[in-house]
C-alpha cells in the first residue's frame, strides 16, 4: 500500500472540503478502498474517514418510508426487520455481500458509491425506487438511484459530494432478489435480479425489476415492467417479462462467464424473482 495522509473530520462540511481536493478518497467501511489500495488500483494521497461524523448511520422509519444512513453497516441492513419486511429484496441483497465479517464493516453507502455494476444492494435499491441524498460544501441534493450511475465505478457525484442517506418511499407489497453465483456465499454476482410488485386482487398494479452486472451500470428493465403492469401473472406473461428483461441486458463476457450466459440468466432469474415477489405480495 502506498502512503497517504489520513483525516477524520467530524462534520460533513469539513469532509466535503477535504474530499474536493485532488487525489482524495473517502473511507466508509474500507472493504473496497483498503483492498484497492493494497492492489495499487487505488493510490489516493489523502483518505478521509466518514466514521467520526455523527448522524450518518442508522435506519429510521417514518410512516411508510424508510431512511437508511449511508454509513449504516450492510449487516444492519440485512438484519433490520423493517427492511426485511418491507424491502425484502434489499435485505436479501445485503445478506449476499461477502461474509458476516465483511458485512460488519461494509456500509451501504460505500457499496453504492463504489458503483460496481455487480453491487448486491443496488438491485434492491433500484426496485425500492430509492432516492439518494447527497451533501457537499455547496449544499444538498437528491437523485434517484437509477440516475446515480454513469458507468463502472462512475457516478454523477461531483468532487466533494458525499452520499448521506437513502430514502425509500412506500414499499411494494412483495419483493425478492436472486444472485447468480457459484459458491453459496463469498461470491461476486455473476448477475443479480431484483423484482418488486404491488398487487390488487391478483392484478399487478406496479412492477419494478432491477438488474445488476448485466450492463455498465445497474439498470431497470422498464420494458418488462410495462408488460407486467395491469396484468395478472400468467406463465406466458412471465416468459415475456423474462425475455424483455434479457433484451435490455448488455452484459460482457469475462472470466466468470460469457455474455450469453448472463443474458440467459437474466431471463431465468427475472421469471423466478417475479414469481416469488408476487407470491410474497
Amino acid at each position: 500500500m502506498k502512503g497517504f495522509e489520513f483525516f477524520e473530520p467530524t462534520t460533513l462540511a469539513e469532509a466535503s472540503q477535504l474530499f474536493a481536493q485532488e487525489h482524495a478518497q473517502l473511507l466508509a467501511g474500507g472493504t473496497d478502498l483498503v483492498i484497492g489500495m493494497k492492489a495499487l488500483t487505488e493510490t489516493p494521497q489523502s483518505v478521509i474517514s466518514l466514521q467520526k461524523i455523527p448522524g450518518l448511520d442508522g435506519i429510521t422509519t417514518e410512516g411508510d418510508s424508510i431512511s437508511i444512513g449511508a454509513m449504516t453497516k450492510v449487516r444492519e441492513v440485512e438484519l433490520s426487520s423493517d427492511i426485511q419486511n418491507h424491502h425484502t429484496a434489499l435485505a436479501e441483497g445485503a445478506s449476499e455481500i461477502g461474509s458476516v465479517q465483511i458485512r460488519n464493516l461494509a456500509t451501504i453507502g460505500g457499496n453504492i458509491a463504489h458503483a460496481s455494476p455487480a453491487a448486491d444492494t443496488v438491485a434492491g435499491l433500484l426496485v425500492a425506487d430509492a432516492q439518494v441524498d447527497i451533501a457537499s460544501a455547496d449544499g444538498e441534493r437528491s437523485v434517484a438511484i437509477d440516475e446515480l450511475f454513469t458507468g463502472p465505478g462512475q457516478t454523477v457525484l461531483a468532487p466533494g459530494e458525499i452520499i448521506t442517506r437513502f430514502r425509500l418511499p412506500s414499499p411494494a407489497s412483495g419483493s425478492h432478489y436472486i444472485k447468480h453465483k457459484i459458491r453459496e456465499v463469498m461470491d461476486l454476482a455473476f448477475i443479480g435480479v431484483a423484482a418488486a410488485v404491488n398487487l390488487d386482487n391478483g392484478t399487478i398494479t406496479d412492477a419494478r425489476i432491477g438488474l445488476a452486472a448485466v450492463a455498465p451500470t445497474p439498470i431497470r428493465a422498464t420494458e418488462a415492467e410495462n408488460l407486467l403492469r395491469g396484468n395478472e401473472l400468467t406463465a406466458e406473461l412471465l416468459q415475456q417479462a423474462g425475455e424483455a428483461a434479457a433484451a435490455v441486458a448488455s452484459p460482457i463476457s469475462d472470466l466468470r462467464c460469457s455474455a450469453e450466459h448472463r443474458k440467459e440468466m437474466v431471463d431465468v432469474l427475472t421469471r423466478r424473482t417475479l414469481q416469488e415477489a408476487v407470491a410474497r405480495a
Partner: protein
Amino acid sequence: MSEYTVVGQKVARVDAVEKVTGAAQYGADVHPPGMLYGKIVRSKHAHANIRSIDTSEAEKLPGVRAIVTQDDVPSGRRVFATDKVLYLGEPLAAVAATDPDVAEEAAELVKIEYEVLPVVQDVMEAIQPSAPRLHGDATKDGPNRRGISTQIRRLSRDKENDHSDEISRLEAALEEYPDEVYYNISAESHSEAGDVEKGFAESDIVVEDTYVIPRVHQTYMEPHVSVASADSSGKITVWASTQGPFAIRSGIAGTLGIPLTQINVIGTTMGGGFGGRFGVIITHIPAVLLSQKTGRPVRVQMTREEEFIDGRPAPGCVIKIKTGATNEGHILAREALAFWDSGSVSGASIGSTIRVRGVYKIPNLKVDAYGVHTNKSGTAAYRAPGAPQAIFAGESQLDEIAERIGMDPVKFRLMNMREEGDLVPAGAEEPKVGYKETLEAVADAAGWWDREAEENQGWGVAVGDWTNGCGPGGVYVSVHEDGSVRIFHGSMDITGTDTMISQIIAEILTVPYGNVTIRRGDTDSAPYSTGSGGSVVTFTMGNTAKLAAEDAHQRILELASERLNMNVDNLELKEGAVHVVSADPPKSISLGELGAYSLSTTGGPIVGKGSFARQPSTPALAAQIAKVEVDPGTGRTRVLKLIASQDVGYAINPMAVEGQIEGGTVQGYAWAMMEEMQYGENGNVNPGFVDYRVPTSADLPTVESVIVEVPAPNGPYGAKGVGEPPITPTLATMANAVKDAIGVRVTELPIKPEKVVQALKSNGH
C-alpha cells in the same frame, strides 16, 4: 474391542492447546530482532525477453537495505530470470527493506525493460508447430509415430537381412501422422500391457472421450514464507514453513555451494501443504541471499496473489481415453493419451497417467503421456499427484460404459475389480487389498441399493487408489527418572502425525498418552527425516517410532532384570511398570524407578533408537458416493450427500483419519465443481479468493466418513498412508452424480453452472 489402549483411540492431538490459543508459531510468526522484510520483484509479462533490469531508483528509496538478482547466485542455478521470462510473476530480483510497505514500493521501482513475446497457455495449442517455443525447437513423436519409429529402428539394427522395402513403407506411414510431431514437450511417459487393438476388436462396446482437468492450487492457508539469518561466520539459519526441512538444507547448500553443516533449517508449524511445500521453493533462496547481503535476518513472505501467479500448483491436463468392454460387463481394453500442462519448467505428474487403469482387471492397456510447456509457473505435487486427473477420466468413462450396457455402476466396478493375486495391468501382482470391501462399505453406508432421487437429483459413485510412499526417518525415545517419556525426531507434523507417533510409543511403553511428550528438532539436531508428504509419515515414522520404542522396551527389561535379579524372559512391561510374571506376591518396578536407576548404571540412561527407510507398501482404496441436485435453469449444483469410505489399513487415531478423509474429499469436490486457475493473454487472471473459488462451509453437507481396515502387512499396526487417497475419486464422483441427475455429462472441469446449461442445451433441453 481394540486390544490396544492408546493406539486406535481418538486422543486429542499433542498440539491441541497451542493451535486453539494462537500460540503455535507459523513461518510468518518468526520475528528475530532486526529483521528486514523482503519482497520479490516479478515479471509483469507472461513471455518476454528482458532487455534490462535497473535497480538504481529502488536502491534510493529510504529504508531499502539490499537488492539481489541472479548475479548473486553463486551456482548459477535459476533463482531469478535474467534474459527471458517465461510466465507472469516470474522472479527477477528481490528487495529487503526495514518495512514491508517500503519493500513493496521498492519492488515497484525496479525498472524492467521487456521485449514482449507471443504467449501460449493451452497445451493443445502448445504442441502445434505454430506455437511460440519456450525452450527451443525440439520435437517428440506422438503415439502412432512413436510406434512406427520404434519398428524402423528395430529393422535398421538388423544388418543380416534386407528390410529396405519395409522401412520405406514404414517411413511413408510416418507421413500419415503429421499432427503427431509435438512441440514444447517437457517429458514423456509410456506404458503398455497386452494388445489394445485386439482388445477393442473383441469388445462389444467401445467408448472414446476427451476429458479436460484444470490447473488448481493446493491453497494451503498459509502462504509460502521463509525467514533467513546469516551470521558473521557464514552460518545460515532458515525458518521455513515446509513439509521437509532436510530437502531445503540440501537445496540451499547446492544453490549456494556451501556444506550442509553451514545451514540449519528450522521447520515452523505448517499452515497446510498438500504437496505444495516440498524442497526449495520461491522464498527460501531470496531470503538467504538478502540476509547474506545485509547481515540481518530477512523474512520473505508471499501474498495470496503471489501464490496464484508464482505458486507451484497441480497441473491441468487433457486426457483422451478409450475403453472397450463386452456386453456382459468385462473390460477388455483401455487406451489413454494425456497432455499435462507442466508450465515453464519440466515436472507435472505425467507418470500418474497410468492410474487410468484404476483397480480393474484390464488385460490390454496402453498409456501415452506428455508434459507440455506453457507460459505458466511450474507445477508441484498436490495430494496424490496426478491421480485425481487420471482417475477422473477413467472413472467417468466407466460410468458411460455401465450406462450403455445397462449395468449398475457399483456392480460393474465390483465385477471388474482386482483381488489378491490378480495382475495389475502393466504392473505386478496385487497383494492383499480391500478394494471390494471399501466400495461395498460406501454403497451400504450411502443406502445405494435402495437410493431414491427426485427430479434433477442424481447419485454418483467412483473409486480411486493410491499407495503410500516411504522414506528414511529416525526417532529417539528417552525414559526419564519420573517415568515420563520424551520423543525426539525431525519429521514435520502434518495434521496429527506427531500425535500418531506419541500414541505408538505410549502403547509400546505402556504409559498413559499424557506422559509422553514429543519434540521436533531442526536439521542441526534431529536425525534425518524424509519429507512429510506422499502419505509417508504414518507408514515411515510409525514404523520408526515402533522400532525406537521396542529398543527402549528392550533396555527397560534389561535394567529390570539387573535390578530385580530375574531373567528377562520372566519379565513383562505393562501399565508403566515391569512385572515379574506370575510372581506371588506380585513383584514389579516402575518405569520411573528404572529411569532413575539407569542413571547410575554402566549402560546409562534409557534411550531407544529407531531408524527406518523402506518396506513394501500396500495399495489403499477410497470409494465415494455423492447425491446432488442440479438446477436446470441456472446450472447450479448442490451436493446433498457426500459419503466417503477408505481402506486405511488400521486407524491409529480414528479422529485424525476421519479428518483426512473429510478434508481430502472436499478438496476433490472443489476441483470438480469450482476451482480452476484461469489464464488470459498475459497469464493468470484469477489470482485471489474472489475468482479462485475455494468451497466454504455453506457449500457442503456433513461429509460422512467410513473407515475400512484391511491391514497392510508392513504398516505399523497394519496402517496405510491416509492423506492422499480421499482426493482421488471425488472429481469423477461429482461428475457421475451430475450425469445421473440431468442425463448430461460434463467432460471439462470444473462443472460450472454455465457448462451445465450449455450441456443441457446441446442435449436438446
